[in-house]
C-alpha cells in the first residue's frame, strides 16, 4: 500500500490521536512486542498506533515527507486553479500529513487558514486547534503551530460564546507542554499573549494556579515571567479603577505583592543559587518600592497610612539587608551553590540601589557599598568589568 495513503488512513481511522512521535526501527520491535496484539494498529515496520498514540518509523519519514509534499502542492495548485469545494478536503488532508512531518512548513498552515476562513464554521476552527495541538505533541517549539492557534483565537473572538473556556484550555495546554519541554519560550509566550483576552477573575485564577507549578520548577524563568505578566495586569487594572474607587483596591494589590515577596524569599532559602528566583525578586522589589512605598508617600491626606507605609518601607529595607547577610555567609565547604547564591544576593542588592536612586541613601546608611564591591569581586571575579563600571 502507498505509504502516504497508509499514513492518512491511520489518521482517519483514529480521529482522536493526540500524540505523534518518530520511532527508531530498533525501538519499533520492542513496541510491537509490548502491544500484545490487542487494539494496536501496526504493520510491524512503519506505523504503530495504540491508545491514540501514533509512532512513525524514522526510516519512513523522508519518503513520507516527499510524498506528502508532492500531494499537498498538487492539491493546492488544483484548488487555486479551480477554486472547487471538493478540493478543499484534499488540501486539508495533505497539509495535515505534511505538517505532522514538518511542523514549520508555513505554506501548509496558510492553506488551512485560507480554507477555514472561507468556510467560517466554528467546528473547523476547533479542528485547527486540535491539529495544532497534535503537531505540538511532537514539535513543542513549533513557532508556526503556536501562531496558528493565535490566528484561530483572533478569528473566533466575538463569534464564539465559549471563548473564556477556550482560553482556560489554552493555558492548560501550555502547562502540559511546558512540563515536557522545559523553558519553552514559544509556549510561554503564547500563554502571556492570552492574558490580554482574560477577565480579572481569570487572571486571578491563573495567578493562583501557576504558583504551584512555579514552585516545582524554580529554574524555569518563563513561568515566573508569566506571573510577572499577570501581576502587572492586576496592577494596571487596579490603577485604572483606582481613579474612581477607594484605596481598598490598592491595599488588595499590595497584598498580592507582599505574599509573592514572602513566597519568593522562602524559595530562595530552600533552593540555593537559582538565578530565576533572584531575577523574580528584582522585579517584585522594584515594583513594591515604586508602586506602594512611593505612591503612598504622596497620599498626604491619609496620615495614618503614611506612617504605616514608612514603617513598612523601613522594615522592607531591613528585611532585604537581612536576606543579603544570610545569603552571603559562605559555609566552610566547596559547594559552588553557596558562592553562586552569594553572588546573586549581592548583585540583587546592587541592582536595586541602581534602579531606585532615592533609596540609595537608605541602603548606604545601613550597608557600606564598598563592602558590596569587595564581596562581588571576590565571589564573582568574572564580571569585574561590570562591577568596575557600576561602582565608582
Amino acid at each position, binding site marked *: 500500500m502507498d505509504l502516504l495513503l497508509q499514513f492518512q488512513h491511520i489518521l482517519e481511522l483514529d480521529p482522536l490521536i493526540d500524540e505523534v512521535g518518530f520511532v527508531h526501527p530498533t525501538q519499533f520491535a520492542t513496541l510491537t512486542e509490548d502491544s500484545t496484539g490487542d487494539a494496536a494498529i501496526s504493520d510491524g515496520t512503519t506505523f504503530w498506533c495504540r491508545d491514540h498514540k501514533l509512532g512513525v518509523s524514522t526510516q519512513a519519514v523522508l519518503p513520507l515527507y516527499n510524498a506528502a509534499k508532492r500531494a499537498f502542492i498538487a492539491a493546492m495548485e488544483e484548488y487555486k486553479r479551480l477554486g472547487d469545494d471538493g478540493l478543499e478536503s484534499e488540501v486539508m488532508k495533505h497539509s495535515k500529513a505534511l505538517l505532522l512531518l514538518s511542523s*514549520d512548513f508555513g505554506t501548509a498552515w496558510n492553506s488551512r487558514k485560507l480554507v477555514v476562513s472561507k468556510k467560517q464554521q466554528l467546528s473547523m476552527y476547533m479542528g485547527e486547534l486540535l491539529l495544532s495541538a497534535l503537531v505540538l505533541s511532537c514539535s513543542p517549539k513549533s513557532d508556526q503551530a503556536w501562531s496558528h492557534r493565535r*490566528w484561530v483565537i483572533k478569528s473566533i473572538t466575538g463569534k464564539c460564546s465559549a471563548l473564556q473556556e477556550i482560553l482556560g484550555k489554552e493555558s492548560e495546554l501550555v502547562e502540559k507542554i511546558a512540563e515536557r519541554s522545559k523553558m519553552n519560550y514559544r509556549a510561554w*509566550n503564547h500563554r502571556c*499573549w492570552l492574558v490580554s483576552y482574560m477577565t480579572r477573575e481569570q487572571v486571578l485564577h491563573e495567578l493562583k494556579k501557576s504558583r504551584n507549578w512555579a514552585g516545582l520548577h524554580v529554574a524555569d524563568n518563563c513561568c515566573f515571567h508569566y506571573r510577572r*505578566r499577570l501581576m502587572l495586569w492586576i496592577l494596571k487594572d487596579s490603577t485604572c479603577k483606582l481613579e474612581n474607587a477607594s484605596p481598598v483596591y490598592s491595599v488588595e494589590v499590595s497584598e498580592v505583592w507582599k505574599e509573592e515577596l514572602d513566597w519568593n524569599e522562602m524559595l530562595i532559602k530552600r533552593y540555593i543559587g537559582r538565578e530565576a528566583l533572584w531575577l523574580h525578586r528584582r*522585579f517584585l522589589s522594584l515594583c513594591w518600592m515604586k508602586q506602594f512605598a512611593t505612591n503612598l508617600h504622596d497620599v498626604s491626606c491619609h496620615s495614618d497610612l503614611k506612617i504605616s507605609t514608612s514603617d513598612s518601607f523601613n522594615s522592607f529595607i531591613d528585611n532585604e539587608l537581612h536576606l543579603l547577610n544570610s545569603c552571603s555567609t559562605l559555609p566552610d565547604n566547596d559547594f559552588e551553590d553557596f558562592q553562586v547564591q552569594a553572588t546573586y544576593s549581592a548583585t540583587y542588592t546592587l541592582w536595586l540601589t541602581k534602579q531606585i536612586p532615592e533609596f540609595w541613601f537608605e541602603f548606604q546608611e545601613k550597608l557600606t557599598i564598598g563592602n558590596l564591591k569587595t564581596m562581588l569581586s571576590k565571589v564573582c571575579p568574572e*564580571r569585574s568589568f561590570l562591577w568596575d563600571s*557600576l561602582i565608582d
Partner: protein
Amino acid sequence: MLPTSTWALRKASPPKIRPWVSFVASYDPGHWVCGGGVVHVVVAGCGSTDHRGTLEYPGRTVTLEPAEGEVCANCSMTGDFGNCDMYKAKLVKLLWVLWVLAMRVSNITFGRAQVAPPPLDRAWWKMGGLAAEKHIQYILTVEKRKDDFISVVMEHLRMSGAYWGLTTLDLLEKLDTVDVDEVVSWVMKCQHESGGFGGNIGHDPHILYTLSAVQVLALFDKLNVLDIDKVTNYVAGLQNEDGSFSGDIWGEVDTRFSYIAICCLSILRRLNKINVEKAVSYVVSCKNLDGGFGCTPGGESHAGQIFCCVAALSLTGSLHHIDKDLLGWWLCERQVKSGGLNGRPEKLPDVCYSWWVLSSLIMIDRVHWINKEKLVKYILDCQDTENGGISDRPDDAVDVYHTYFGVAGLSLLEYPGLKAIDPAYALPVDVVNRIVFGR
C-alpha cells in the same frame, strides 16, 4: 589559508570620521526626522570615548583626540537624503556646511577618531584558531546537499539559509566562489506577485524571507534587479494601526517583524514609506522592567528579540528609549562560566547568542562589560575542525545557522582575517557602506 595581511591592512588604514558616529544615533543633540529620510546629527566632544567603535571597527573603543594644542569637536551627519523632500534636504545640508564653517572660523579642528588597539591578545591563534577553510568547504557542500532529511525539512526556509551561508562566505572573503547569476535568478524565482519573497520557490511570501532575499541581493550588489517600489509596498503594507508589523497577510505580530521591516526598508532607502514614529513606539511598548524586550507587549525578554528591538531603534535613531545600563546589565549576565552566552536566564550557552547578545551590547555601548577572550575561546571550541561548521555547544552537530552566527560573532570580536560586520544591518560593513552611504 586566509591571508594574514588582511589584518595588517585593516590596522593600517586610518578610520574615517563619518563612520564613527554614523550608527550612533542617539547622541546629543539627537536626530531629526526630516521629510523622507532619517538624518542623524551627532556632535562628540574632545576626548570623548565610544565603545561602539567605527563602522569599520565595530565594538572597538574609539577616542576623539585633538592634535597638540588644539580643541576638537566632531559633527557628523548620516542618513538617507535620497528620498526626503528637496527643500528640507537642502536646509539640512546648508546647516551642515554652516557647522563646518563655524568650526573652521573658530579654529576648531575635526578630531581624528583614534581606534584603540584590539583588546584581545593573540593567544587564541596558538590554539589552532578558526578553521576558515574547513568552514568554507562545509558551507559549499551544504548548499549542494538537497536530499537528506535535515536539508529537506529546512527547505521552507532556504532563503534564510542562503543568507546565513553567503554572509559567512563573504565574511571569510570567499563570496567569489559562488555563481552570482545562479543565486540571483533563484532568489527572483521566490518572489511572489505581492512583492514579498517566499522561503523557497512556490512557497508563500513572508516578511522573514523578504529581508533575507534583500540581504542576499545586497551582498552581491544586485539590488538593481528588484522592483524596489513593489517590495517596499509589500513591507509597508504589513504595518498595523498601532505601528507594529505583521509577518504576512495572516496577521501574526512580533517585534522581529518590526526590525525586519525597518532593516529591509533602510537597505532599500525607503524608510519614509512607513510610519517610523509609530513603529518605534510599538517597539518601545514591548520593553520590560528588566530592560529587555519581548515579542509583544508583556512578552518575556529574550536575547534574540532584544537584538531585533535594539537594532530597530538604532536604525531609526531612537536608542535614547533604552536604559543602556539596565539592558547592558541583563545582557552581560548572559555570559556563563564557560565564556559562552545564553539567550535567557538559566539556559545553556549557545553560539548563536554570540551574535544576538554581542551586537546588542555593541549598539548600546556596553560591550566592555563582558569577557571577550573567553567568548572567542568558546566559539572556537564549538567548531568541527575536521569537517567544518560550527555548532551551538562544543561537540554538538554543526549547522549553517550556527556557523553563520559563530563567524559573525568572531567578526564583531575583531577576529583576525574576518571582514567586519555591521551590528544593526547584519551585513558586512563594506556592503552597508556601499548601499546606505553610497560609497
